[in-house]
């Protein structure tokens, strides 16, 4: 199958990847770049599991073609931490047990990051709306809400 050379900015690094042009961003991240932190639940844009950030906005990587996002900033869960220091959301999700099986977690973390970057003090209702496209079958969402709220509070305190 003919491959196209793609130039992608992923987690702050410019990478050249050769992949068939019809491969989704999800497939290229996971299969060509070995960034398997991005998960898939349906590959039809229904569950939110494969969420990544494109220029800070949550996108479904299973519905995105890499050629569409060349030159834009792509953030996956692997790029959330600053070096070895976890992102505030990674800390609070861990502390409060907001990840159970952990499979939906990367997508939810990124959707929550986009929310907090846009609004450092969201209400419970705003959090629920921002995460309404991300299914989780384990938690009942309660601990996820609490973890986002705790990360937001710490962010406002400058921690």
């Amino acid at each position, binding site marked *: 199958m003919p491959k196209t050379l793609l130039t992608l900015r992923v987690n702050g690094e410019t990478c050249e990847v050769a992949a068939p042009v019809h491969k989704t961003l999800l497939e290229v991240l996971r299969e060509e770049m070995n960034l398997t*932190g991005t998960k898939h639940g349906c590959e039809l844009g229904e569950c939110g599991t494969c969420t990544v950030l494109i220029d800070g906005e949550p996108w479904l990587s299973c519905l995105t073609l890499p050629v569409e996002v060349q030159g834009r900033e792509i953030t996956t869960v692997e790029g959330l931490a600053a070096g070895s220091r976890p992102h505030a959301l990674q800390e609070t999700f861990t502390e409060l*047990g907001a990840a159970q099986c*952990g499979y939906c*977690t990367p997508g939810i973390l990124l959707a929550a990051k986009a929310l907090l970057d846009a609004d450092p003090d969201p209400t419970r209702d705003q959090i629920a709306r921002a995460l309404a496209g991300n299914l989780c079958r384990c938690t009942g969402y309660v601990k996820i809400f609490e973890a986002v709220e705790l990360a937001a509070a710490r962010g406002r305190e400058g921690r």
Partner: protein
Amino acid sequence: MPEGFSVIGKPLPRVDGMGKCTGQTKFADDLNLPRMLHGRLLRSTHAHALITSIDTSRAEALPGVAAVLTGAALPIKFGILPVSQDEETLAIHKVRYVGDPVAAVAAIDEETAERALELIDVVYEPLPAIMTIEDALARDDVRIHDYGDGPNIHKMVALEFGDVDEGFREAEHVREDVFFFEGNTHLAMEQHSAVASYGPDGKLTVWTSTQTPHYVHRALEKVLERPAGRIRVIATPVGGGFGGKTDPFSHEIAAAKLSMMTGRPVKITCTREEVFYIHRGRHPTLMWVKTGFRGDGRITAMHFKSFLDGGACGSYGVASTYYTGALQTTTYTIPCYKFEGLRVFTNKPPCGPKRGHGTPQPRYAVECQLDKAAADLGIDPVALRLRNLVEPNSMTVNYLRITSCGLRECLDRVVEASGFRTKHGRLPRGRGVGLAVGAYMCGAGVPIYWNDMPQSEVQIQIDRGGGITLFSMAIDIGQGSDSVLAYTAAEILGVEPSDITLVTADTDLTPIDLGSYSSRVTFMAGNAALEAATKMRAIIFEAVAERLEVPADLLVANGRRVYVKEHPERGLSWPEAVRVAEARCGLLATTGSYRAPQLSGPYKGSGVGPSPAYSYTACVVEVQCDPENGEVKVEKVWIAHDVGRAINPLLVEGQIEGSVYMGLGEALMEEQVFRRGVHKFPSMLEYKSPTTLETPEIRSFIVESVDPEGPFGAKEVGQGPLLPVIPAVANAVRDALGIAIDETPITPDKILASVTDLRRGGTGRIGPARVPSIAFKAPIRVEPPAGWRKVTV
């Protein structure tokens, strides 16, 4: 924090939390091996058909295809229960449901494998298909399997404990009700996936997303006809199970065989649509329940009938059938009890165990009927339940041993917190509250295949730097089993959970744990870990005692030190203590084993239901129903769960909240239904499940009855809290609108139909009218346990 513990009872992070939050946890589909091929399964497009021929030549000729496999190469059948070995890896002569695997391909990539499937020519001869319980019972001209208790009856059971007729004669009020619980599926976020690698040394390794690596190991041994020692099964972290990954599956065996054929690793990851067809979820169940009450509400007798729509394979179905009759007696004292149940085969994806396995359906029926009876008798629903509650340290009429039981406290907590007594029957039309309770096992007392070996074993080994490694076959499916094992060892050895390295779920490296099902892991693997850690501590204490010249029983292990309790300055650091012990004893390695006490009653079928302990839950749900559009909004849920002892209250709450969520989905929207054998909506968009927007406020209460046999007194929490949620919703809807939706899910169309019926002078009931009038076999009559109190006037 409970006094005397330094780890147990603390809201600590999960030990696997950060790995999952950084994307470093490797799930099965995240594995990529050199030269790995990608496999796909061809699945039947017919619900019931004979296979006339399969021609794979065109697929084999496709460039990039490495191997094509059909059922003839794997003729040995398998299945999770020894009594239902009715599954073929790939169908040989006959397909039994749309989605039944018929061929498998391994190719250089998924697209090539997918194209190859299209080139496999299968000729089918369609057979009449059976789609309903009624059809399965009525037809004997069509047979799905050639075994069972009737043409299409997989299993029929009938048990009578005490004299039920006499019990009903004692009753002043008798109710008969019929309910239907719709099937639904697990919908774990991770699709099933397996990677198999057959090495030049003749060793086969299978990494798979499974809740039961031991049973996958056994199935591979049997079907591939290879010694168990030449097969290694590694369960990868499971991205959600809920019972959906507890059977051995065709894709696991096919991946293994394809790897053996090609000498290359093979990965098969199922699509979301395939997962809907793999199923093994909640059995659609039709139920009839007749209960006798005295005027004061005391139950005199219960007769329960269940009809399970099993789908096309046995799976756990025999156990599922018994479970629909087993646990009714664990919450209420039922003086005499009769259970008749049957499971039919139908040409639909196989049903199996989903969270609560066979018990949410009868729990829903019993709790809904109790509310109706309370209204008949003019007794409030709380009082009716209190009047019948089981007592701790008692025996049920069907020989289930009840030890710790915090049900009364659970009930008190939710009734008080919710203001149930002031709300029930008193809220404005459209608003209502509902109450229900439940109980669940802490591990099945009897293993799936008969054996007299332990159900859980743990090994602990310490290196001379002080590092502690704990080996266990338990697999974390999100419920937190890794954390429970680490907390247990850390508590006993006086270190931090992060000091424990876990090696889990690997048949080569870890001692047995039967798997993450039946809520068994905390109780059974936890007890095994407790024993191994306690033995290790004793070895280290003896060595340290010798060195310090003090009696060992004066020592404690805490804060990464071993020291004299009354003189904390007299002691050794953990690494020093370990070195002293290794110098004295050699390799520091201990083991622990757990086997449940002998709990079965004196009758056939008594293997299902006994457990070393039962968890208890009570739940109140408040709803707002719109009679104009039929919408139900769950406003708030109060739920109290007797977990014995919370090993980690944060994780206990997480299991309670997740159970509430899943129960609400089952109560209000989830349904696994088929049209001529084809799933109506095999997608996550159309299979409705609750999102963040449907999440109510959940107020959870942890009740600690401190079980005498649980590790640190702990019991289960993964499944029990789901049970009362569904009937509590149904009872709340009845309270809100005066209607009775006697089937799940309670959808807007049913509410509108019911409200309309009520307005036109009808009863406002939606639900099945009757159960099939089939003659069950004569029941096995069982005398109640010795000393069982007779019904007295």
